[in-house]
């Protein structure tokens, strides 16, 4: 009797398992690898998946959420071995998406831009960042640019709140009259015992953001364009001037002491805990500011004025990462449908309101959305003539020269000229090997 019961149980279990398996097999499984590990974007992606699956009962979307280092380490090999995801969210640029495109591992989405209307929906410069050799290989999802967070209360305590002014032509954006005013704020913060600029450069990508920003202020986008697509060079005096500004802030004690030994998160924590007067980083930090600062209302951000009066108010900008589809995917159509679902104008509103992510949608009007004052500013800033956050458009050797430079300048083991020269050497090497970004 016992044996019969056991046999029956095993048999029933097998039937249940087989039927479950059969059910799973009936569904089309679409795998998605993304980097939305922060709470709000992660929750939004989960709700997108749930809604899409509800509308498509035959589809099962499996998300694999990885941090940036993990996806960089695993995605290329996974795609090359044929075991990669159908849809992925990966860094754009010649050092990341570029080699995958060259290897034929990414689906060409140029035609889909027309059929699905993305060419009308998305801003041109963001699409250009995922364009290689005149073909479009990804769908950008986020506009981000560098900025300076400051604590309004601390600034008022220092008696310097009046230095913050509205930008000419856009009264909702904040700036300063000159970089001298910024130096005044930093000096006052230092004298009052605060860290003037919270800066953790153990991962030198952070220093790279500062360099991109300072180059935008000293030379502007046209200058960078002339290097990227013309005959300009990285050892030009304008580049050296940007590095000198970076170094000058260190020499004057404006950065966190021993910044090379402090992580990005530790640097941000100094600002969140009112131990630092300002934080030069980017709009990608807005959600964390809202979450981690005890009084988020006390925090705001400004855009630094250009060093050269001829240059417009700007910042170093990028698209974060980009969605792309595997060339070998068996489920391209469904992956495209899902991508179209999360990249619509309606979905854009949710990226903005629920996840504090500014989608690269053309003609975004911040007044149309339910946003915090700081997010309103982020949206407005996105329409400025923005320059490049360089690490995502440059080859890896050049990035290494830049990142090494951000660290060696801080401990005095190199000069601004050394770093600029190393960047030019790396650029020439990458150029000669065809490893640079060619949009057209």
């Amino acid at each position, binding site marked *: 009797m016992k044996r019969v019961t056991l046999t029956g149980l095993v048999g029933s279990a097998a039937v249940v398992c087989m039927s479950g398996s059969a059910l799973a097999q009936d569904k089309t499984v679409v795998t998605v690898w993304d980097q939305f590990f922060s709470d709000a974007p992660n929750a939004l992606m989960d709700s997108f998946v749930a809604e899409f699956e509800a509308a498509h009962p035959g589809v099962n979307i499996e998300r694999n959420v990885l941090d940036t280092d993990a996806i*960089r*380490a695993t995605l*290329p*090999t996974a*795609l*090359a071995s044929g075991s990669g995801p159908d849809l992925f969210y990966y860094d754009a640029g010649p*050092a990341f998406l570029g*080699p*995958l495109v*060259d*290897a*034929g*591992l990414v689906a060409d989405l140029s035609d889909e831009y027309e059929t699905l209307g993305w060419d009308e929906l998305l801003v041109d410069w963001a699409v250009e960042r995922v364009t290689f050799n005149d073909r479009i290989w990804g769908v950008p999802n986020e506009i981000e640019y560098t900025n300076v967070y400051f604590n309004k209360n601390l600034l008022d305590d220092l008696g310097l709140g009046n230095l913050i002014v509205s930008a000419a032509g856009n009264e909702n954006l904040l700036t300063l009259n000159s970089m001298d005013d910024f130096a005044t704020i930093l000096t006052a913060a230092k004298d009052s015992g605060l860290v003037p600029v919270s800066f953790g*450069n*153990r*991962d*030198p990508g952070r220093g790279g953001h500062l360099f991109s920003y300072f180059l935008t202020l000293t030379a502007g986008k046209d200058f960078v364009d002339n290097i990227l697509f013309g005959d300009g060079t990285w050892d030009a005096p304008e580049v050296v001037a940007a590095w000198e500004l970076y170094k000058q802030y260190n020499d004057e004690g404006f950065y966190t*002491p*021993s*910044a*090379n*030994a*402090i992580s990005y998160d*530790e640097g941000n924590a*100094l600002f969140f805990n009112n131990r630092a007067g300002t934080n030069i980083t980017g709009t990608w930090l807005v959600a964390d500011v809202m979450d981690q600062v005890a009084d988020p209302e006390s925090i705001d951000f400004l855009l630094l004025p250009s060093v050269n009066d001829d240059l417009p108010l700007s910042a170093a900008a990028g698209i974060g990462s980009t969605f792309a589809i595997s060339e070998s995917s068996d489920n391209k159509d469904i992956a495209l449908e899902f991508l179209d679902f999360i990249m619509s104008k309606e979905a854009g509103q949710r990226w903005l309101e629920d996840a504090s992510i500014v989608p690269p949608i053309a003609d975004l009007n911040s007044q149309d959305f339910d946003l915090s004052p700081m997010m309103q500013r982020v949206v407005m800033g996105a329409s400025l003539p923005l320059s490049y956050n360089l690490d995502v458009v440059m080859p*890896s*050797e050049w990035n*290494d020269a830049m990142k*090494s*430079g951000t*660290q*060696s300048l*801080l*401990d005095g*083991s*190199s000069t601004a000229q050394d770093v600029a020269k190393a960047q030019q050497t790396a650029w020439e090497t990458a150029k000669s090997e065809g490893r640079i970004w060619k949009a057209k």
Partner: protein
Amino acid sequence: MQSKTYSSSKAFDEGRRKKALALIGRYALFLGPALLVYLPFLLYPLVQTFVLSFHEWNGVSEAKLFVGLDNFRRAFDDDIFRISITNNGIWVVASIALPMFFGLILAVMLSKVQTGQRVYTGVFFAPVVINLIVVGLVWGLIYNPLVGPLGQFFRAIGYPQLAQGWLGNTSTATPAIVLAGNWTFFGFCTVIFLQGLRTVNPEQIEAAMMDGAGAVQRFRYVTVPALSNQVTLLVVISVIGSFKVFDIVYVMTKGGPSHASEVIATYMYWQSFENGRQGYGAALAVLLTLLVAGASIALVSLRERQN
């Protein structure tokens, strides 16, 4: 008669054949399981790495461009590779000098301890069993200029200028990591030396004493030579470990700042997986293998010649 001879010879051959087959079967039985793991997971990747070192490959493209010895030539012109080799050299010297020196002193002291010797040995040995990733994280925290106890200590005793980011400076990063890494090794040296000290013949010590040798002379001329096998073992382990070191460097600095704490293994990883030059990374791996193998063979030969 002839047919009988023939048949006995045939039977003899048959017997030899069976014996040989049995022998092969026995070899296969013993070697088979090891080869099943060794061939696909060690030998095949080793050969593949060697082949890859003569190619240029970004890790994803189908085509691998044959470049002959270019990757090796490039290594000898590469400043960061030179920094890496120098740092590996620092690791070798430091891991022989520091933990073996302190391990020997501790072993001698422990050998005199009558009660609780095992407890002390266990305490000194404890760091050996801690994963180097964990060691790197803990020591990273110790060195942290914002919250680390080392900085707090220096501030408390009135030397705030020493409360700096040791891992963030190009000139102090490598010594700081080497110190952390060797902290895990001195306990191992202590245990090995302690075991060796038990084999020292007390009669030789007594004879040396009767000949008027002082404590230092007895240690230098009787104890240390008796520990030569242990020294050889530890030197070989140190050298191999120092050339292969990766995890603690990667966790603490990722080879930075500005590649200042790079060792061959971290640089190889960076070139292969972050810089997209798998062929060059493979060439560095081949050079690393040659270095480790060469150093090990040289040490063991030297030891055998001395014997």
